[in-house]
């Protein structure tokens, strides 16, 4: 079936998220919707799926206008969606999730007894047909995200979706899982399903798209052929020419000052979420921790900063043992920390920028005057840092929560980097930021490295890891699978991807050589340099 959008406009208050968008998705094609974070891609898809009512414009299916009052209508019209944040009930089984809202029943009419055997059968049938291996009886909360995504796709297929919307589907996947997803997408399009693939990753677009539509600030700014060069796509997406990747000098590595030994962190249930980790970080290098979300990276950084309770082992910063110290003592020892959830853990949203900038140092001079805050000193500090870190705000008294993501992150960075550091930790430093902010954050991190500070980066985005790291530690199920220098392998991306699934380095090298990933291959075919984009 053909899906067409005509002049879709959606406003949130004064913000125009979608501004007169036209789009046609042909049967059996993979149509990539490319755009930066905040460009309005997800809003548009939520309009198509009936979750948002458009303020103007209409949706046509095979030429006939479609009136949507909710997701039920969209599904009835053959539109299925895999949300970026999975819409799965964690305590239900796969089969229960797949049939929810669409349940087969048995027994007397009107009673509605669930036919779970029928549901299981349906799941098996579909997963066989499309090569989506899942156990219908597994609980969602026990499944890795890659498998959860398959369940989401099954949910759409069980409703006979003819158009499948995938919203940033690769954000949570390893490169190899991405390849599996691409294989599934090929099967689906071969069967006549159209796919709308939303992403901001240029690399993937080139590998799978039949057609590309680029969205910027809520408007369609152009369409492109998958064979277009990467920097051309990037320029179209961002609206100016961008330098892909960070320019950085080779590291001037000094002595090792951070030593993590046999670190174990337990969660509330007593499970070892960090399971015997050893790491060294030297002055003047960036050690990046790569891995799929939820493999202990978050807990590792939080253990260093003293935000985790059940920690055993040793974390030495120079001569200081950090395990057992309170967070304030850790910060005073010279640790700077950018948490992964900046709005929740990095800032107090209702506090002003100037207050947020001294959250860690408001107790002492120059910001404290006896028991009171020295407002003049706060203001001077804020004015200085807002300039240095290019924070776009109408003034230092503005509430931090009202800033854009990029500017919020700049405030966090400004606070953490404005005192002398012995260790700088940044967790997901650019998640959800626009390209301009990403460039800025990356340059700042590299500058801190070049100033001689040991830097620990945690990122689930391989692009970011590759852009910043001098050495890469891959974590899987709480353990470090291996530590790889950034210049050791030609096909580093593939090797890391396999290691992210728990494969040891040597084996990963062999496998990666035997089966180069499709996304890599597409990049190579086009004759591009393996440039790094985020």
């Amino acid at each position, binding site marked *: 079936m053909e899906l067409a959008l005509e002049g879709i406009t959606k406003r949130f208050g004064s913000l125009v998220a979608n501004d007169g968008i036209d789009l046609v998705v042909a049967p059996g094609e993979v149509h990539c919707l490319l755009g930066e974070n905040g460009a309005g891609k997800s809003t548009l898809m939520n309009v198509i799926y009936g979750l948002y009512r458009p303020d103007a414009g209409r949706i046509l299916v095979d030429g006939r206008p479609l009136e949507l009052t909710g997701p039920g209508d969209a599904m009835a019209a053959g539109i299925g969606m895999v949300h970026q944040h999975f819409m799965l009930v964690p305590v239900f089984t796969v089969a229960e999730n797949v049939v929810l809202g669409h349940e087969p029943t048995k027994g007397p009419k009107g009673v509605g007894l669930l036919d779970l055997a029928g549901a299981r059968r349906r799941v098996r049938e579909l997963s066989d047909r499309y090569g989506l291996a899942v156990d219908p009886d597994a609980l969602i909360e026990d499944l890795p995200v890659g498998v959860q995504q398959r369940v989401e796709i099954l949910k759409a297929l069980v409703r006979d979706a003819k158009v499948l919307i995938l919203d940033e589907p690769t954000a949570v996947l390893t490169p190899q899982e991405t390849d599996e997803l691409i294989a599934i997408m090929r099967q689906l399009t071969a069967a006549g399903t159209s796919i709308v693939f939303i992403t901001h990753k240029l690399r993937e677009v080139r590998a799978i798209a039949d057609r590309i539509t680029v969205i910027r600030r809520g408007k369609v700014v152009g369409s492109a052929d998958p064979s277009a060069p990467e920097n051309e796509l990037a320029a179209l997406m961002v609206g100016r020419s961008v330098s892909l990747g960070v320019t950085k000098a080779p590291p001037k590595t000094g002595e090792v000052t951070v030593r993590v030994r046999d670190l174990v962190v337990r969660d509330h249930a007593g499970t*070892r979420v960090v399971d015997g980790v050893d790491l060294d970080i030297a002055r003047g290098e960036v050690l990046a921790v790569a891995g799929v979300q939820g493999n202990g990276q978050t807990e590792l950084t939080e253990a260093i900063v003293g935000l985790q309770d059940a920690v055993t082992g040793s974390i030495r910063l120079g001569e200081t043992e950090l395990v057992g110290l309170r967070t304030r003592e850790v910060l005073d020892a010279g640790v700077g920390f950018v948490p992964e959830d900046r709005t929740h853990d990095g800032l107090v949203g209702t506090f002003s920028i100037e207050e947020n900038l001294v959250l860690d140092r408001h107790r002492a001079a120059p910001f404290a005057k006896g028991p009171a805050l020295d407002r003049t000193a706060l203001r001077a500090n804020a004015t200085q840092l807002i300039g240095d870190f290019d924070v776009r705000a109408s003034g230092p008294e503005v509430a931090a929560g009202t800033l854009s993501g990029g500017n919020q992150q700049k405030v966090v960075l400004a606070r953490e980097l404005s005192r002398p550091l012995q260790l700088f930790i940044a967790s997901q430093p650019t998640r959800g930021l626009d390209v301009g902010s990403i460039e800025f954050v990356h340059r700042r991190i590299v500058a801190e490295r070049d100033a001689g500070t040991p830097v620990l980066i945690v990122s689930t985005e391989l692009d970011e890891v590759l852009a910043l790291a001098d050495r890469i530690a891959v974590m899987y199920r709480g353990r470090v699978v291996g530590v790889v220098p950034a210049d050791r392998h030609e096909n580093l991306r593939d090797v890391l991807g396999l290691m992210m699934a728990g494969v040891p380095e040597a084996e990963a090298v062999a496998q990666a050589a035997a089966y180069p990933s499709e996304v890599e291959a597409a990049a190579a075919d086009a004759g591009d340099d393996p440039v790094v984009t985020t």
Partner: protein
Amino acid sequence: MSTSAPAQPTAPAAAAAPVERSSARPVWVMAAFAALALLLFGGFGPAGSSTFALSGGGAAVSLPDLPLPGRPSGWVIGLACVALVVVVELARRAGRPAPRWAVPLFAALWVVGFLVWVVAGQRISLVGLLGGGLVLAVPLVFGALSGVVSERAGVVNIAIEGQLLAGAFLSAVVASATDSAWLGLLAAPLAGALVGLLLAIFAIRYLVDQIIVGVVLNVLVLGLTNYLFSTVLSADRSLNSPPGLGPVAIPLLSNIPVLGPVLFNQSVIVYLMYVAVAVVHVALFRTRWGLRVRAVGEHPRAADTVGINVNRTRFVNVLIAGALAGLGGAMLTLGASLAFGQNMSAGKGYIALAAMIFGRYSPKGALAAALLFGLATNLQDILSSISTPVPSQFLLMAPYLATVLAVAGLVGRVRAPAADGQPYVKQ
């Protein structure tokens, strides 16, 4: 298919996590209870025999009394408890789950030991103890079911107390005015549902904090019924003299020794309770409706994206919950053949809420917890009429103390539905 790396790369060494043993805490709690059993029931056990009368009034088969020698029984039970602790600990060391019967058996033994100890050489009627406990448990069971139905859909129902009270009031008044207990029984769920309606409107439609609305409704119903009691009902006594729904013996079943008179010679409201527990259980876990309700309580947005109307589901469930609690209120008046009295629910709604949580938001668990609370209350009533070494205040406190310890140590953290208490707002 995929031309790339084999699907699902295997992770050899890295994946092999050490076998995790389950926590030792439940075993410690059990061990503490076992030690207490040995010490209290054995060491300080009563000298004489505690006698349990097995025949209640009107039983077809007459059974002899069951005398249990105080101290020896205490020792036997204490040692059996210790043995069970060993069984559970051995299973834990082997990395296996403990046998399913171990903890319930432990609890049952402990209760028997406790009974022998408190009865201390006196004689009590077992049928009276169990039957009376069941009667006292009925409002709690209905209240806890009400909580389950509401909270499984994601709405916290603190208003159970008010719904019980409203049900008690309206059933008494309607039954008195029409001189029909059956019409009164019909009025009870309506009264409860009306309170539920208010909760639903404010909590779901106007997004007022569910706990605050619930508490306000409880106070409102208490004030309103007190006012009507002291004005209307005092002025015309005939409005508050309801006919009761007394015990009805079910043929054959009521002749079963001990259990017959306890379970099957009761008010029709008790029989309704059996049906309600079974129906709610089946509906919640075996039907399409139940799957949707649970989805709404766990992940409302996911439910919304598959076309389930979240707020309508919640609205309906809160009404059903109110009706269930209202029915429980009828037990206080019609079921007990009593006139309505001020603040008749006397905190039972809150106990019902505790029973729901203790029962892990499941109908069966709620039933078990409510029965335990009812039994404990009745035991305290009975013991206060015979002389026992234990102060009655302690007996009143004991079941709740034991519950807190048992919940903390054995049941573990009770997981509420993930979206419980959070209003759902469409974007």
